[in-house]
């Protein structure tokens, strides 16, 4: 895990540094009066006068202490503080917002896709199976940002049912407690729907093919031959084994979800890490970009670790090894 993390930071670091131009260009370009001496001083502060490999070492030494340096944007706040602002309530911290949105989507994807997958596998070629298979095919091809646009147009503009931007209304503080909860929830409905839609298609399809494979196995036939009721055969014997590969998928889907948050946080104006990353990209805020890339990689690796642990808990064959 640690070597992978090192590899990720190394690749990100080199991409940014081997690109033409210096990260400090954005600071100096804006200021025509800057002298060459001032520019040099700036480069020295960020260690840009040293060879790339030395810079990487220095950067790594700070990262271990979770010190990502200062943002290059005008506010000059530490990167870590912008991602995880301890002065703000938990619900308003960027990393927490992105994390929460992805967790909710992931839970919804699993809760909806698995039953759909099982149902269409056990009723292979039925009308239900055909409808879900077709829907899934469209789900694969649907650009998530387009789905977001259409939903915003329908529910936000024409029906005026749901808010289409941000995480809470302007008058949030004046709302009663119940109103506050509904306000939060209603802001989440569209973003969560959009971010889970693509995953839903993929996972239900995957679950269906796993289930179809497992149902053909000998031990399922044996279970049936023993005269067990179909429900027990499906849910006790087949389901658990079909679920195993899904756990691996949980880990693999993390980078996609995090990457996708750039798109839908941007569309729905959600102040999360994805939106911050996008703004940093637009302003070439180099310390910020490196910081978020690293945190994204750490989250991905945590996802992989969780998947490994889950796999171990679910599969006795691996535990025995």
């Amino acid at each position, binding site marked *: 895990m640690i070597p992978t993390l090192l590899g990720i930071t190394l690749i990100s670091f080199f*991409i940014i540094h081997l690109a033409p131009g210096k990260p400090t260009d954005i600071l100096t370009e804006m200021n025509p009066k800057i002298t060459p001496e001032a520019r040099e001083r700036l480069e020295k502060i960020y260690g840009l006068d040293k060879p790339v490999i030395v810079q990487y070492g220095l950067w790594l030494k700070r990262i271990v202490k979770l010190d990502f340096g200062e943002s290059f944007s005008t506010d000059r706040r530490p990167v870590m503080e912008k991602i995880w602002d301890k002065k703000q309530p938990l619900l308003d911290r960027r990393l927490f917002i992105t994390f929460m949105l992805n967790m909710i989507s992931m839970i919804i994807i699993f809760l909806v896709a698995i039953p759909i997958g099982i149902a269409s596998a056990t009723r292979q070629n039925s009308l239900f199976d055909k409808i879900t298979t077709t829907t899934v095919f469209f789900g694969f091809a649907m650009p998530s940002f387009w789905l977001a646009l259409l939903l915003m147009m329908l529910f936000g503009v024409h029906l005026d049912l749901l808010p289409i931007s941000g995480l809470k209304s302007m008058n949030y503080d004046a709302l009663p407690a119940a109103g506050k909860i509904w306000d939060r929830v209603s802001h989440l409905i569209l973003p969560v729907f959009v971010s889970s839609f693509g995953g839903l298609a993929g996972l239900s399809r995957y679950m269906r*093919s796993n289930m179809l494979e497992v149902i053909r196995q000998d031990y399922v036939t044996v279970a049936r031959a023993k005269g067990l009721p179909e429900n027990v055969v499906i849910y006790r014997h087949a389901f658990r084994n079909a679920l195993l590969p899904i756990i691996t998928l949980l880990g693999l889907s993390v980078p996609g979800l995090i990457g996708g948050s750039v*798109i839908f946080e941007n569309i729905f104006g959600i102040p999360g890490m994805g939106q911050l990353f996008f703004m940093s990209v637009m302003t070439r805020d180099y310390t910020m970009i490196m910081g978020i890339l690293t945190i*994204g990689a750490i989250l991905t690796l945590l996802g992989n670790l969780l998947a490994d642990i889950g796999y171990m808990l679910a599969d006795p064959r691996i535990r025995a090894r």
Partner: protein
Amino acid sequence: MGNDNPGNLFWKRFKKNRLAVAGGIIVITLFLVAVLAPLISPYDPNDIDRRHILEAPSLKHPFGTDDLGRDILSRMMHGAGISLSVGFVAVGIATAIGIFLGAISGYYGKWIDRIIMRFIDIMLSIPTFFLILAVIAFVDPAIWSIDNFPGWLKRILQHVPFIDPSIMNIMVVIGLTSWMGIARLVRAEFLSLKEREYVLAAKALGAGDLRIIFKHIMINSLAPVLVSAILGIAGAVLVESALSFLGIGVQPPTPSWGNILELGKNNIEIAWWLSVFPGLAILITVLGYNLLGEGIRDSIDPRLRDTERR
């Protein structure tokens, strides 16, 4: 009648698969539209007409006009070429890298394999979209300026009017971040094929590594790579449109489906046609490539049906 060579068998199965044929028709139609766009588009895609801005679809402008009075249908027809060329070049780059790394990894095994597999794991752990954005932020599109290319390539590129530096940047970036699936696929093929008798026979006859890799193994692993590449084009089209939608992909005035959608978002309350038609075009394109890719896969080897997709 009893003509059962693999090619005929493939066609027989492919023609029976109606969805695959539909996918093929979509893809061919898109090609025709992209190539013929200058001839068949009703207006010049960059014709600004200030008297007809943000007009709803009508007989004169079937898909409406944008905020500068440009005809959306014409812009979408020209955008088809951008979309397809990004898809093809990006997937070409990804396939070349994937085949190269997958082949040496699977063929030589040992430490080379371990290093390459670790590299693939690392690439898969970076949120790809983050990486793409970071590269686009820091790589100045000017390095793709046509003057930096060798003469022969320059002469070819001069005739491709829509390739500007911002598009080159996107093609390369998407290509460099999407080769991992193909590399794994090729590696797996090589691992199983290199132990076959005919390869051992070639080795015994003294054939060199390069000859075995290309002439004996690669040929037999091309089918799954082709399928994966076709499905990859769909993915690249999606990424390009997402980038253009965010305003960091294909830059206006060059038309792309994604940047028309960006206008749609900015005018969401007044101009539905800017959001609906380009999105539909992306959906149909991606659907077409997916259907074609899966159709080809099922026709090459029906046993592969229902295997997972990545």
